[in-house]
């Protein structure tokens, strides 16, 4: 009697229900935790992601159990109605496209578009760095993904986590785990991926170019900027409204001068809360049995390609602009056109300073960097309008 009970209990423990794939994912999660905590790779994102991954791969927790509504039961009587696991409920905010725009609100409230307004040419660099998105799209088509999946994989090259999640939930929700993990991991690896490409594509002389100091931008310009950008981008690309609109609203909170409280909340408590929930749910969506499939490996390979080509696109246009401006623009700022604010700009700064210690490219690189955020949101809007609604 007692023996049978003990036996039954043992069978209900997670240990007895462990499978190979979940085990691998737990090891991956622990590696991420190590990278985040010990090596300092984007800890603010990677810790919640890794912990979500860890918890949802431990067997029998039901923490990522999908919601089954009364309607689902009606359609398929073999199911039973359930509200779903906690992390799945968090995840539904991604699925409904709520979290990414909210993150953008916070990012907008933290971003100073001053360097971009002072040097609007950098918008072109922000556009050129989106090249990675579309070349990866071609690559993904050839690896057998359909257009929706290929678009979601390509957007990894935008180096913009929220945009990648937003687009993927709309076009190819079944790939969300892999794409989000790839996008955020590569964003953390920007300082590793970018410098070799930047050095190969530029000459020492170009890397040493010092740029003129940026002009001072008036408050009126800073207030008008978010309003104009919202109106123009939304008029041309209505599907980008949610992302660009929230980004610019956050920025207006910051710059208007009369909404300091809102701006402070959006850029602190608010974005942190959303980041925690988004991180956990993205991590939790990477469950062994659905995550460890050949597609994931293809996505991870294509993702790094997307980053590399995007960086190259930005640097190459930077070289063109350098030549056209008579050597006044340092092509290194082009690589910052992949969004990844502010890591990519810091990489430009570091690579430039390695050649010429008295060179400060950071503020010049912030221009293309924030332009990249707008650029990848625009690219996402284009892809949504082409491939959405199926």
């Amino acid at each position: 009697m007692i023996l049978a009970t003990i036996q039954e209990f043992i069978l209900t423990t997670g240990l007895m229900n462990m499978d190979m794939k979940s085990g691998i994912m737990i090891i991956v999660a622990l590696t991420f935790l190590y990278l985040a905590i010990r090596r300092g790779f984007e800890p603010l994102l990677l810790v919640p992601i890794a912990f979500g991954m860890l918890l949802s791969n431990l067997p029998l927790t039901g923490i990522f159990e999908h919601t089954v509504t009364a309607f689902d039961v009606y359609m398929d009587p073999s199911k039973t109605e359930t509200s779903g696991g906690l992390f799945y409920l968090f995840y539904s905010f991604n699925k409904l496209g709520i979290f990414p725009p909210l993150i953008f609100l916070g990012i907008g409230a933290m971003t100073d578009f001053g360097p971009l307004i002072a040097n609007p040419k950098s918008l072109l660099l922000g556009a050129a760095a989106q090249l990675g998105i579309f070349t990866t799209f071609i690559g993904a088509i050839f690896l057998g993904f359909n257009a929706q999946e290929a678009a979601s994989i390509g957007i990894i090259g935008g180096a913009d986590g929220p945009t990648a999640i937003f687009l993927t939930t709309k076009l190819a929700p079944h790939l969300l785990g892999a794409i989000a993990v790839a996008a955020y991991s590569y964003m953390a690896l920007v300082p590793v991926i970018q410098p070799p490409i930047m050095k190969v594509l530029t000459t020492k002389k170009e890397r040493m170019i010092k740029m003129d100091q940026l002009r001072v931008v008036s408050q009126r310009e800073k207030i008008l900027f978010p309003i104009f950008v919202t109106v123009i981008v939304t008029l041309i690309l209505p599907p980008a409204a949610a992302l660009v609109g929230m980004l610019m609203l956050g920025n207006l909170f910051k710059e208007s001068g009369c909404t300091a409280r809102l701006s402070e909340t959006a850029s602190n408590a608010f974005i942190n809360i959303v980041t925690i929930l988004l991180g956990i749910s993205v991590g939790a969506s990477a469950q062994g049995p659905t995550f460890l499939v050949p597609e994931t490996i293809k996505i991870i390979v294509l993702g790094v390609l997307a980053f590399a080509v995007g960086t190259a696109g930005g640097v190459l246009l930077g070289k063109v602009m350098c030549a056209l401006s008579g050597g006044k623009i340092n092509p290194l700022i082009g690589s910052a056109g992949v969004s990844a604010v502010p890591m990519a700009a810091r990489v430009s700064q570091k690579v430039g300073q390695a050649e010429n210690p008295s060179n400060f490219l950071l503020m010049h690189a912030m221009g293309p960097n924030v332009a990249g955020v707008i650029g990848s949101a625009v690219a996402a809007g284009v892809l949504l309008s082409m491939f959405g609604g199926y």
Partner: protein
Amino acid sequence: MERFADPEMIQGLSSSELVQGALITTLMGMGTTFVVLTLLWAIIAFVSNIINKSEGKPQGPTAAPTAPTASSPSAPAAAQTTSASAATGTGTELIAVIAAAIAALEGTSPNHLIIRKISRVSGNSTPWSRAGASEIIDSRKF
């Protein structure tokens, strides 16, 4: 293109049709991104121009006194001599500080030093300020 965008029908496309679809997407995508951002560039430049013009007029008299201070960093950059900088008033103090710093570095008394000329090595930032700025940039983690 319609069949390309439809996940149900893309399987039936030949590889040349796939190439076509992918290339069209790339051209459309990059094209639109460039057009939108170029348009933004034009409008930002235009708006900035108007604002700076309208703000430039009333600020005319107030801008004048700031002009000398703006040009002053370039003045010491151009081979600042002791006699020239003494005229500005703050120069003597600066020379005293530099003399003291050199004396401390050399381990002698400032009385043994004769300063004939002080000139900047390059730019209008010192190695100290550069080192400080890089340190701040390095210490910031997002």
